[in-house]
């Protein structure tokens, strides 16, 4: 069975301004998102993430290229696209602040043409889901930033969209709320919903995203699964071994092992601390053990490269090497 493609972005270009002030916010990017996938768009501020999302949301027109959501063209089939997508653009705005959470939800439910019999149950369920059930009658202006963010999430689900865009969804939410949101996001994809996530939180992206793109200055600089993005970025695993009685010749031979890129030895009295830098996709430890022979190991610690390491290496190589 072929996998359904829910989002198809082909050679998307979006510019702002004209003449000498022309700026290419998104510069010829292409990617696809499959049904039920949690897809990440990572990049620094001004990289073009939000512009890309807004084109998919139909609030910005592409300058050139083609964007299809659930088979509908964002330029031509705008209304169909809007019926099937939800989004959280984040921040503490986007509501009638002098009205209650429930009144705001009712307004958006009607705006999205949700039948009133469904509204009666769904509004309460969603407010409970985001932990605002007991504050549903309170005015939004009395809410904290985190509560407004949770209300954004409830609002985005009011019409049960197939595709959900989350732009920095955990921004301003406390750690417990952020964890609940991550669980909710996982539940949504388990139910076949397609989620596109932008975030600055690399641990969040690594934990949630099945595939992702890293965008810099409007272009894609890496794409794929988090592991392959790390590989593409050339980031390394670091293994630190503390041992006694090893011969210098054995240590020198470690650099000959395939996958090891650097070995650094530090003498600490009778002990030696060896730092071994290796490629993230290769397990070199069996070969290392064999070369070192029967020595006394006091400690072995391995730090796997994180998506953050890869991100920094891709976006700011100067910072990564420091």
């Amino acid at each position, binding site marked *: 069975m072929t996998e359904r493609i829910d989002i198809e972005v082909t050679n998307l270009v979006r510019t*702002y301004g004209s003449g000498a002030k022309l700026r290419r916010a998104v510069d010829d990017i292409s990617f696809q998102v499959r049904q039920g996938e949690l897809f990440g768009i990572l990049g620094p501020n001004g990289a073009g993430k939000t512009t890309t999302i807004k084109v998919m*949301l*139909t*609030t*910005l*027109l592409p300058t050139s290229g083609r964007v299809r959501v659930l088979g509908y063209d964002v330029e031509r089939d705008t*209304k169909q696209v*809007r*019926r099937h997508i939800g*989004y959280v*653009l984040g*921040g503490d*705005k*986007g*509501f*009638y*602040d*002098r*009205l209650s959470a429930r*009144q705001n939800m*009712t*307004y*958006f439910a*009607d*705006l*999205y*043409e949700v*039948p*009133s019999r469904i509204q009666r149950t769904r509004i309460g369920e969603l407010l409970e889901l985001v932990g605002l059930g007991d504050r549903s009658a309170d005015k939004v202006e009395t809410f904290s930033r985190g509560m407004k963010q949770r209300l954004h999430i409830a609002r985005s689900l009011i019409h049960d969209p197939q595709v959900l865009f989350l732009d920095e969804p955990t921004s301003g939410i406390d750690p417990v709320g952020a964890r609940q949101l991550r669980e909710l996001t996982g539940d949504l994809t388990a139910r076949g919903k397609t989620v596109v996530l932008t975030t600055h939180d690399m641990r969040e992206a690594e934990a949630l995203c099945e595939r992702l793109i890293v965008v810099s200055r409007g272009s894609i600089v890496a794409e794929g699964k988090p592991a392959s993005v790390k590989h593409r970025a050339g980031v390394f695993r670091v293994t630190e071994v503390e041992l006694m009685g090893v011969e210098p010749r054995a240590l020198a031979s470690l650099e000959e092992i395939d996958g090891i890129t650097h070995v650094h030895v530090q003498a600490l009295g009778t002990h030696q601390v060896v730092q071994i830098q290796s490629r993230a996709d290769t397990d070199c430890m069996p070969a290392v053990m064999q070369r070192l022979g029967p020595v006394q190991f006091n400690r072995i610690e391995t730090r796997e490269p994180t998506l953050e390491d890869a991100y920094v290496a891709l976006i700011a190589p100067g910072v990564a090497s420091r």
Partner: protein
Amino acid sequence: MTKLRFLYTSWLVHLRQISTMKVYVFDSVVLPLIFATIVARLAARSGSPATITTATLGTAVMGMWVTTLSGTGGSISRLRVMGLLEPIVAAPTPLSWAYAGNALASSTLGIYSVVATLLWSVFGLGLDLRIGSPAALALAVIVMVFATAALGVVLSVSLVMSARAQSMSNLLEYPMWILLGAVVPLSFLPRWAEPLSWLLAPSWGMRAIQAAVAGDVARSMAMVSICVLVTAAYWAIGAMLLRWVERLAREKAVLALS
């Protein structure tokens, strides 16, 4: 049906939102009474109850227009500042329906302006108001609500594109008073101004009000009919223009605040 339900919800939401705003409450509560006091004092010198009544109702319409204009034009600025313009555009319901609810809510508060002006004129200023056909007047006022709301929607088209929508809408306040015939009879204006007033739906509503006050029910009904036709045309033109402007706004990226 879902559209009408949304129109009702939108009307209610905007009414609740704007009725809690101090500046807006001043515009719709206090300002009409100031207008009424000034105009009634001027008209009282004529000694004609018909002139006094027509002038007083003219100030009521001025108040209705102020609330509609500040409600519609100002609401676009408010929607932008509150981060709501973009979410409303991103929904499947056409922008024109959201604006319609907004404009109707503003005009509904304008009804207060009419009632308050009449009560203040009679009980506060002691004027002798004589209304030939109260029923025709009530109908004319209701039609006037839709007419001013429709004019508000058409004008709001230009305001979608500018973050300075409020200041632009303020510019339209005084010329409209004159062209609607609210301050002085249209016959006082230069000849070239009269065709302009024909294009304004509320000016037909104003004529209907004047005829109702004079007790000329047949003329009032005729003016109401024309007002309804012009208002329907406004709604259609407004919806069409809003679709065009929405596309332009998506192209120029002016929906968000930044």
